């Protein structure tokens, strides 16, 4: 599903955020990405989302070298990836329902079908009863679950998450991780950046460990 081939990324010509990255993630795998802050976790995810291009090497997602994508194709590429952000990036001027339906609106899904899928996603994260609420009325954990619902409403083959449990207490964090495991169980490839080592050690999935932009350990690889 994802292949990094000798990938390096420099910012401003000097600072080397990532170097000599070589790994593969199989379809349907669930992978944690860990390391101290500044180790390059977010940069790595940004490369996969093609918010940036690698300075060196190739990033191949679903068989395509994504650096080769034309700017006009990038939106369509991103639609195939669900992304959960640490600050969840919800729009505060619209309801939970409309936040979740955003990816479907962008794709022009017919409203009835869209409503059905939004409800299914909200049901999955246990927030169906809050669909009319505004994001500010929700707790941090609920907001994060709305973010997850928005990421999966489109049934993406690949789900990325950047510190999805960053601001949550341990119980809520475990709940969120359990949600990701559910999506992984139905075949979604999941990649989660997290520095919550205790939590991810308990979950027994593959762990990619980054230090100073280099891959220092690949534990539990299949």
């Amino acid at each position, binding site marked *: 599903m994802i292949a990094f081939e000798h990938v390096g990324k420099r910012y401003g010509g000097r600072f080397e955020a990532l170097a000599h990255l070589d790994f593969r993630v199989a379809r349907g795998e669930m992978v944690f990405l860990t390391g101290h802050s500044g180790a390059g976790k977010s940069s790595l995810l940004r490369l996969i989302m093609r918010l940036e291009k690698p300075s060196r090497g190739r990033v191949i997602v679903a068989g395509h070298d994504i650096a080769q994508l034309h700017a006009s194709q990038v939106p369509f590429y991103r639609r195939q990836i669900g992304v959960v952000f640490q600050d969840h990036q919800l729009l505060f001027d619209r309801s939970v329902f409309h936040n979740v339906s955003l990816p479907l609106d962008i794709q022009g899904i017919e409203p*009835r079908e869209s409503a059905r899928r939004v409800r299914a996603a909200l049901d999955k994260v246990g927030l169906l009863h809050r669909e*009319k609420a505004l994001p500010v009325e929700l707790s941090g954990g609920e907001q994060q679950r709305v973010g997850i619902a928005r990421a999966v409403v489109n049934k993406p083959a690949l789900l990325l998450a950047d510190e999805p449990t960053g601001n949550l207490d341990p119980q809520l964090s475990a709940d969120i991780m359990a949600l990701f495991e559910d999506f992984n169980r139905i075949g979604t490839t999941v990649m989660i950046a997290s520095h919550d080592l205790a939590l991810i050690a308990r979950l027994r999935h593959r762990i990619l460990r980054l230090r100073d932009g280099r891959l220092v350990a690949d534990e539990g690889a299949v």
Partner: protein
Amino acid sequence: MKPSATPRRAKGAAPKAGRKVSTQRQEAPPPKRRGANSQQTRFSSRLRAWGRHHRAVSWDSFYRLLRHPVGSLLTMLAIAIALVLPAALWLTLDSARLLDAELDESATLTVYLETTVDPAQAARIDEAVSAEQAVLETRLISAEQGMVEFQESLGLDDALAGLDANPLPASIVVRPQSVELASMEQLSVTLASLTGVDEVRVDLAWVERLRHLAALGRRVALALGLLFGLGVLLVVGNTIRLAVESRRREIEVVMLIGATHAFVRRPFLYSGAWYGLGGGILSLGLLGLGNHWLSLPVAALAASYGASFSLPQLDITGSTILLSCSTLLGWLGAWLAVTRHLSSIRPR
């Protein structure tokens, strides 16, 4: 999905899209075919999604304008003021052009015959003048006729009645083929050389001046139109720039989840078009108001010259052109502003 099903709108489903979609769907039930038709189906469903989005976005951007009525009105007023001046000038020139046509009609030379010429000679001279190539038609005015017309136009019956003899010469009014100043002057020289002709008068210099003035005015109007059109672009562009800035986060988010530039641009383009349309309507109102305000003194002025003249008004065509132009300018201003700013917005 059957069209006959009660259009139960899902709770919380986009109300902006829901309004018109239900009626539209009854006209065209979504085809649920497979196989050979699926390509076509996908295309038509994409087309419908596109239309749905345009409808939703156009209304959404309209409601956004209504949410800030004062700001929107001020922007539209600025546009309207920028449009009124060139439009008014255009109208004035348009009426001047009508006047011009009338002047062409009445462009004549007057050939005054010597007072010694008798009516039979005058008729011969008239024939000779008519025979000229450059002459369209002629009208012979005998000395007596001239006196009558003079009396009528001046109302000086008594004063003229006191005269012993008719001091007026016979004259021939000549309508030339061409109303160009040069050819008329040439004609006048030719006519002046005929025997029995005292003087040929071409009173066209002022017509020519007026024509030059109108040409100048048209150029000024065009320049002003371009300048103020640019002004409209700037007004809309600036407003839209602020709107883009205030929705920056939203733009970043939708771009993160795969929105195309066209998708991001669309609501702003509609906002710009609405601003332009609103400004156009306001400028029509301002023109009407100005017309109303000026009509009384203009009518009085015209009456004092013994003429009736009413200020020109925009007809349906003119109004449509003005509204289309203003809407297009608004759209274009928004396009420029958004395109310029989209490149600076990168999802974090």
